[in-house]
């Protein structure tokens, strides 16, 4: 039996003395970080992916495993980088909203109205809703939805109290639901189902 691969935190700890130990973290997490960034800023994700890992490497000595795990830590760095490109992010959402507002698919049976209330039908309004959120609220919401971080992890990577995360998420989700209006068959918000 081969030895188990070292964990993320162990690799970071080792990399403080032996920087080469950091490289496998890229292979483990690059896809997830890029996907998170890509959903937020599109093609710019290519650049920000690189920046995320460079910053993480430079700050590896300051990483505290008891504070947050490595993947959330990386997503936090990525989120901070997105701050420098807020307009790119908003422009992307608006463009997606406009594109989704193009004429509906032809030939749908009127009786299939319920089926049209599927996720695809909500793409445009959802993108528009994201564009309208305050950046800090959007960070919290997207770390939860796309980063799949818990409330405590979001608080850790954004360096705010958990209560602040709750209020930001409440506001973001309320506004998102309001923007979707009557077209969304959303269930009530439930913190227990949030991951």
């Amino acid at each position, binding site marked *: 039996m081969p030895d188990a*691969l070292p964990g993320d935190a162990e690799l970071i700890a080792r990399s*403080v003395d032996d*920087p*080469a*130990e*950091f*490289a*496998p973290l890229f*292979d*483990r997490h*690059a*896809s997830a970080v*890029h*996907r*998170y*960034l*890509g*959903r*937020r800023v*599109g*093609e710019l*994700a*290519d*650049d920000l*992916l*690189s920046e995320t*890992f*460079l910053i993480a*490497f*430079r*700050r590896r*000595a300051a990483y505290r495993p008891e504070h947050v795990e490595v993947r959330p830590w990386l997503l936090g760095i990525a989120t901070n980088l997105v*701050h420098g490109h807020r*307009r790119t992010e908003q*422009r*992307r959402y608006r463009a*997606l909203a406009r594109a989704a507002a193009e004429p509906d698919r032809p030939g749908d049976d009127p009786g299939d109205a319920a089926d049209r209330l599927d*996720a*695809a039908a*909500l*793409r445009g309004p*959802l*993108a528009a809703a*994201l564009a309208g959120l305050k*950046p800090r609220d959007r960070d919290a*919401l*997207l770390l939860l*939805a*796309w980063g799949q971080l818990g409330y405590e992890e979001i608080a850790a990577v954004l360096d705010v109290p958990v209560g602040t995360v709750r209020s930001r998420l409440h506001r973001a*989700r309320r506004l*998102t*639901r309001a923007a979707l209006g009557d077209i*969304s*068959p*959303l*269930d009530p*918000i*439930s913190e227990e*189902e*949030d991951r």
Partner: protein
Amino acid sequence: MNDLTLLREAGPEAPPLSLAARSAARAALLDEIDGPGLRRRPRRRVVVRVGLATVTAAAAWTAAVVVAAPHPVGPPPGSVRLVDFHVPTFPLSLDPAPEGLRPAFDGNGDGASIAAYDDASGQDGFTIYVGDDAPEGTGHGDDGAPGYQELDVDGVSLGDDEVEVVTYERDWCVEDTDQGCVTERRRFAWLSWERHDDQWVSLLGHGEYADAEQLQEVAGSLVDRPQPATLDVGLAPEGWSIRAYKMGRVLTLANDAHEAQDLTVHIPLPEDVIPAGQVRESISGPIGPQLDVTVNGRPAQLVRVDIGYVVDGHRYEGWYLQAQFEDGTTFVLQAPEAFTKEQVLQMAEQVTYHP
């Protein structure tokens, strides 16, 4: 449906992580790991090998890494047809041109939207942003940056328009260390106005240009005369388009039908140019000999490389060409195996660079 589920299922999707982007990000990290003291030698790069449905992390960064291939990386060898192609331009020029400053353009397939004019030291200069929408805030988000402090707001005249110039300071990261950024206070000036209908132009000055009068002068010298891209290719595969160009010296094209298939032309910094005799040993995944070829009448080096994907038993390969322009400036063309050797050289002959 929960709203989080909705965000996951109907929210914006991410573009695929291309092999080129992944490799570039990984190479940048490995350079950083090498350390600044080693960065000026020819790059030591890692072969990134890819197999299907197997994910593991290498025990050491020098070892091969196996990750899942997202999808096939394009049509087969010999499928490329090169056609005339030119990189879109930046829509504005400065008349008179600012003395001692040179532009570098950033943009995408729709054209350049950013022109950064800097002096040789990078201390003095300004950036021009062009877009359809009014920018929000000051300094492209600088009003949310650490240590942001507004210093002055001056009204200046631009033709019939009265426009505000905001001068501010912010913390600027001059060195990123293990303990975080070492910052200094840096001064900027910001000017933004709707120059034409649906054409918003913003200027961000630094150094000597962090000044209302200087920016007013720059704004007054803007004319509607497109500037050609500093790096152009002249030829490109039919059905491909620009994914991005950066800093006026990195250009990425992608196959519209197979986004994972792309090619990159870039001008390496002088310290990153690989000595002609060491190209093969300095690049990622060489699988063929270093071929001595000629581009622009000058010696060039061409190497067949393993680009890292194995899909359905097929190992995808590519080309790495280091060549020079007639003035001796080095450029690199990395192309997928869909190119023949002759097409790589044909395309390289048409690359131009006018910084």
